[in-house]
């Protein structure tokens, strides 16, 4: 604590207007924080490994044999198709992880974003800077969205690479039996990754809304886990089919649509709109909670 008095305040009553830190700087700081966190890196590494593990396992098993029955829930038959098809592997991996794993990672990031910061007392630091609560939520939602894109992107990337290494570029076959060129296949995977990112962002937004109401990131994780499980169960109850269009995961099964040729866009568009609705609801509730809660 040496004397560094030159950093003492020059009286500057003129600079009294409202001022705020530039938004890009906040976004950069948020991203640096998310991607410096060991937990985030471990999760991304894990996600990156999934397509590789599936690919290697399918290769080791060699001939997967005729799959029994077909359409068996979360990409069960997709995984079987993924053997010997470089296009299907990344999407099968995404479809499988979208069932539970990916939503949980989105929930983890959403939980850390507000509840975790609150628990560490770090949210105060930015609120006192000051960062207005609306901007804070924007930054947090942006961070969650970026993570969602990274999570889906990293799986798609390792999925493609693994598929290509195992099967080469000629085995790019759609579910409809058409052979695709490499750019076409890449586009399909990109669409799938983008769509999955949007769904994850919706989960993350819901996680943020819960996150704004609690100090415990584990509560967020548990709520989202419970929600995903309950939604999946509801999805199976035909008696509740009037409810199904309201459930976020109603179109998660339709990810396989990108593999069809020509690609039917209806279900995917519906799923995207549904995710957007969830984002609108969740972020507005999160804002309402965050802007009135004590910091």
């Amino acid at each position, binding site marked *: 604590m040496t004397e560094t008095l030159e950093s003492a305040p020059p009286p500057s009553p003129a600079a009294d207007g409202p001022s705020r830190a530039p938004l890009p700087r906040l976004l950069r700081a948020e991203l640096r924080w998310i991607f410096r966190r060991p937990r985030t890196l471990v999760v991304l590494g894990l996600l990156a490994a999934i397509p590789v593990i599936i690919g290697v396992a399918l290769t080791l098993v060699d001939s997967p044999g*005729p*799959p029994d*029955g*077909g*359409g*068996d*829930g979360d*990409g*069960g*038959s*997709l995984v*079987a*198709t993924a053997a*010997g098809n470089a296009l299907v592997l990344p999407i099968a991996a995404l*479809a499988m992880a979208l069932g539970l794993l990916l939503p949980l990672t989105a929930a983890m990031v959403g939980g850390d974003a507000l509840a975790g910061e609150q628990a560490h007392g770090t949210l105060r630091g930015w609120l006192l800077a000051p960062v207005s609560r609306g901007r804070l939520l924007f930054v947090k939602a942006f961070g969650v969205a970026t993570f969602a894109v990274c999570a889906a992107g990293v799986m798609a990337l390792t999925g493609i690479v693994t598929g290509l290494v195992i099967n080469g570029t*000629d*085995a790019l*076959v759609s*579910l*409809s*039996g*058409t*052979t695709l060129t490499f750019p076409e296949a890449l586009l399909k995977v990109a669409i799938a990754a983008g769509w999955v990112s949007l769904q994850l962002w919706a989960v993350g937004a819901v996680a943020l809304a819960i996150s704004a109401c609690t100090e415990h990131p584990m509560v967020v994780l548990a709520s989202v886990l419970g929600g995903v499980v309950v939604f999946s169960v509801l999805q199976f109850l*035909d008696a509740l089919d*009037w409810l199904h*269009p*309201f459930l976020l995961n109603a179109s998660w*099964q339709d990810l*396989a649509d990108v593999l*069809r040729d*020509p690609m*039917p866009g*209806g279900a995917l568009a*519906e799923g995207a*709109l*549904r995710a*957007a*609705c*969830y*984002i*609108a*609801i969740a*972020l*507005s*509730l999160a*804002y*309402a*909670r965050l*802007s*009135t809660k004590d910091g």
Partner: protein
Amino acid sequence: MNPKRKALAVAVAGTALGAAGLGLLAVPAGAGEAPELPPVGAQALVQSVLEADPPALAGTVAFDNQLGLPSMPGVPMLDMDSARVYYDGEGDSRIAVQDGNSEQTIVRDGNTVWMYDSATDTATKTDARSHHPREENPQGRMSDPAAAAADLVSDLRASSTVSVDGTARVAGRPAYELVLTPKPEERTLLREVRVAVDSESRLPLRLSVLTNGTTEPALQLGFTDIDFGAQPAELFEFTPPRGATVTEAEPDVEGARDAARAGEPRLVGEGWDAVLVGRVPADVLSGGEEDGNVRGMLDRLSTRVSGDWGSGQLVSTSIGTAILTDDGRFALGAVPQQVLTKALATR
């Protein structure tokens, strides 16, 4: 503004917006006010349907059933989610039946029919020269409302009242509702069959089967979206992907063998209370790896019945009943159980 009020306003606005969007998704596509169309007679409508050639189109067909059976994953026809249908207007077609995460693609290219199953990665090539395309393939036939509706209309005219009952919007298109009601003396479970006919192309867009005492169709097959217009030619070509198992099938021969083994099934009665009576090929029920499945499935679905015709297992659904006797005969129809047993008794 008071921050509490502002927060409340944002919460309400955002939630309302999102809920409205979700509500929009929940409203079934094609629902809406009945369009106004110039009146048309039932006779003329049926005529125009039978005459019209389906134009080039791309659409999605969905199949819905409320048969009252427990949901049976793995039973192919009941499990079909939807199918995408492409037609070039000149006989070539492509049907992609979506079944969970796999797909069966049927491409008719001139005289060749390719069938590709993504789940098994097998492609089957069939020479279709000798038969009418509509009878080529039961799956294709079910998925094509044009064929299904046309057949029904012509068959049922004798025993039904045929009328045009208002209009409807199907897959966003205005359509006439052609209604077939069984004549009072018909002994059937069905109340009516409705066929929605596109007002312009006269293509049947939707087939609904309604039973007594329900408002929701027990069975519905129809387009959920449809676009008329030329389709890219490459849709109607098929090259089996590298690595796929390719076989050439002769379905006609096989079908004939099946039929011979089974004994030709015959229709007892006519009109709405017609009952199909026949004999199940022995090896379907006993032997083969399917054995466990078929018997097990039956046990779960059926109740035991017996009478002077013998004894067997009865499967009841909202649109029809079926009996499989212990000695391997079967009878099925859109009729109550008594009609079935009577039909079984008339050997």
